[in-house]
């Protein structure tokens, strides 16, 4: 009974809590954070239940008001959307638990608007993933974007300016996407993705279809921070408050990557995309450049959050590269990397939040041996996530890179294989220098201070989410065969 209504229920959970939080928050602001945790917790349980029932019964199409497409609008819960929903809601659940203390110190008195905005952002992300209608996708895109601008503007002094630049670039991208939708609508006369996918092959040579594809990929590429369009990302992630970054960084770009998957694999189909315009080649090359550029820029940073932001540019490149390979191995590798990167990046940004909470900064040049003694569990979580990011087995990060590498070999694309290998070495450079500072190097002048350092770990509500995400990396690593078997089933060809 509940299965057939799941797609709408997940989105409705966030609508309900976006209303409940201001209602209760006016009465007692301290209820906001627990309510947000409960909301995302319910959504995570529903998504897990939905994904398990998808594995047994197959995809669900939910028609709103009983009107069937193309007249009505629908939510589609298939393998791809189910997988993404599960990943983002679970990660958001842990980040929201963590934000309790961050909220008290970084933006006191603004808890109620903050968590209401967080719920709206999650509503937008979930809606973008679930909807089966291109115009609704635009609306949900703007809901999530507007909420993200607000979330990013809460933070250090330059945060509003970073948020404003993101707003200008993001809205221009969203508008380009809308223009692409308009072109497709004039050609096919429908907005439903499944309906349009059936009609598009007969219009493949139409110039407006080519233009539509290019506009949509560029517009969504802005949101995904695909290489030349990533300009908004480093400042936004650096200046926003720790909990906003930890919420948006693992989720926002993933959702945009999901839309690219949806457009390339489901709406146009790989053969048609390549027949229309060499989009997969172009985004593959851009992703490859982005992987190297992001890694090199990350090495040059001395601020941990900024370093992680550039690392995100690089990691989103892996996902897009897996998409551009357009074979089952690349597809599974990219989806596994979506899961891995969401968990790894959330864990790393939570560690940055923990350090900011205790030290007041996350400047890598000030890291030293005393951190190991002061924050044993935080630094242990950081090490696990960093090693996973570099890609050493048995941690999760190794396996997604492994499948991506197999995918490039399958396509005989030796250039991309080299990029994956080289960037893993670059990742090692910028993560191991932190590990070296914390675990190996013992600067003489701080010798006394380092030995005197007392254990000063963050509170349990921050430590537990960080550690759970780190442990999850081991679990995903060991369970990778089972996960990949499911991902191969999702591949649409």
């Amino acid at each position, binding site marked *: 009974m509940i299965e057939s209504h799941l797609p709408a229920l997940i989105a409705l959970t966030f609508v309900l809590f976006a209303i409940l939080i201001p209602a209760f928050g006016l009465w007692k602001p301290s209820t906001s954070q627990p309510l947000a945790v409960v909301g995302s917790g319910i959504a995570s349980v529903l998504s897990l239940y939905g994904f398990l029932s998808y594995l047994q019964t197959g995809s669900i199409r939910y028609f709103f008001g009983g009107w069937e497409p193309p007249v009505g609008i629908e939510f589609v819960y298939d393998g791809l959307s189910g997988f993404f929903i599960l990943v983002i809601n679970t990660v958001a659940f842990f980040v929201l638990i963590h934000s309790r203390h961050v909220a008290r110190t970084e933006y006191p008195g603004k808890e109620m608007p903050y968590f209401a905005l967080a719920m709206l952002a999650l509503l937008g992300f979930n809606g973008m993933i679930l909807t089966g209608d291109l115009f609704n996708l635009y*609306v949900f895109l*703007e809901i999530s974007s*507007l909420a993200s601008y607000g979330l990013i*503007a809460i933070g250090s002094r330059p945060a509003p*300016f970073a948020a*404003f630049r993101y*707003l*200008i670039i993001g*809205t221009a991208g969203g508008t380009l996407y809308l223009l692409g939708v*308009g072109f497709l609508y004039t050609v096919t006369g429908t907005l439903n993705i499944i309906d349009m996918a059936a009609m598009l092959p007969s219009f493949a040579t139409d110039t407006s279809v080519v233009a539509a594809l290019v506009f949509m990929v560029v517009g969504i590429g802005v949101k995904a921070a695909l290489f030349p369009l990533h300009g908004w990302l480093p400042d936004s992630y650096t200046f926003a408050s720790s909990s906003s970054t930890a919420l948006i960084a693992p989720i926002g770009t993933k959702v945009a990557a999901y839309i690219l998957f949806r457009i390339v694999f489901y709406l146009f189909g790989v053969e048609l995309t390549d027949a229309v315009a060499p989009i997969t080649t172009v985004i593959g090359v851009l992703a490859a450049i982005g992987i190297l550029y992001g890694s090199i820029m990350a090495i040059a940073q001395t601020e941990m959050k900024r370093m992680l932001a550039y690392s995100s540019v690089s990691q989103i490149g892996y996902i897009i590269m897996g998409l551009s390979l357009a074979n089952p191995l690349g597809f599974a590798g990219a989806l596994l990397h979506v899961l891995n990167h969401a968990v790894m990046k959330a864990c790393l940004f939570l560690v940055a939040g923990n350090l900011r909470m205790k030290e007041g900064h996350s400047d890598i040049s000030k890291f030293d041996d005393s951190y190991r003694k002061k924050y044993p569990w935080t630094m242990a979580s950081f090490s696990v996530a960093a090693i996973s990011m570099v890609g050493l087995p048995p941690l999760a990060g190794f396996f997604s890179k492994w499948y991506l590498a197999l995918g490039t070999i399958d396509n005989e694309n030796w250039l991309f294989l080299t990029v994956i290998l080289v960037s893993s070495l670059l990742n090692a450079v910028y993560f191991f220098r932190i590990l070296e500072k914390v675990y190996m190097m013992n600067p003489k002048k701080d010798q006394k201070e380092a030995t005197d350092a007392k254990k000063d770990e963050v509170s349990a509500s921050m430590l537990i989410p960080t550690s759970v995400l780190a442990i999850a990396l081991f679990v995903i690593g060991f369970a990778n065969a089972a996960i990949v078997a499911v991902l191969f089933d999702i591949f649409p060809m």
Partner: protein
Amino acid sequence: MLDFFLGHYAYWFVVILMCVGLYGILFKKNLVKKTIGLAIFQVSVVLYFVSIASKWDATVPVRDSNIPVEQVANYLNPLPHTLMLTAIVVGVATLGVAFTLLMAIYNRYGTLDEQELLEEIQ
């Protein structure tokens, strides 16, 4: 050739408007002017949708007893207009957020010039 230009005059208007908007976004240094450029850019897409739905000699999409329902060419397509209502609301909301951010920036830095702001942040 002339027919090509005159026959698509609505689209040319949209393209020119879009270029004006993009120019504002890319080259204006004042953040308020950038926001105005963004608004023009959004409106150009709204006008594109409105122009594709317009027809000569067609009536409003309400059933008229004189025109059989089968003669779809005599009725306007209401869908693009309805979609644009939503898009306009989205645009208004975006502008609202943009102006709120501008107020926060001005309160913190006392300027809205992009160059000065960038220097201040460095």
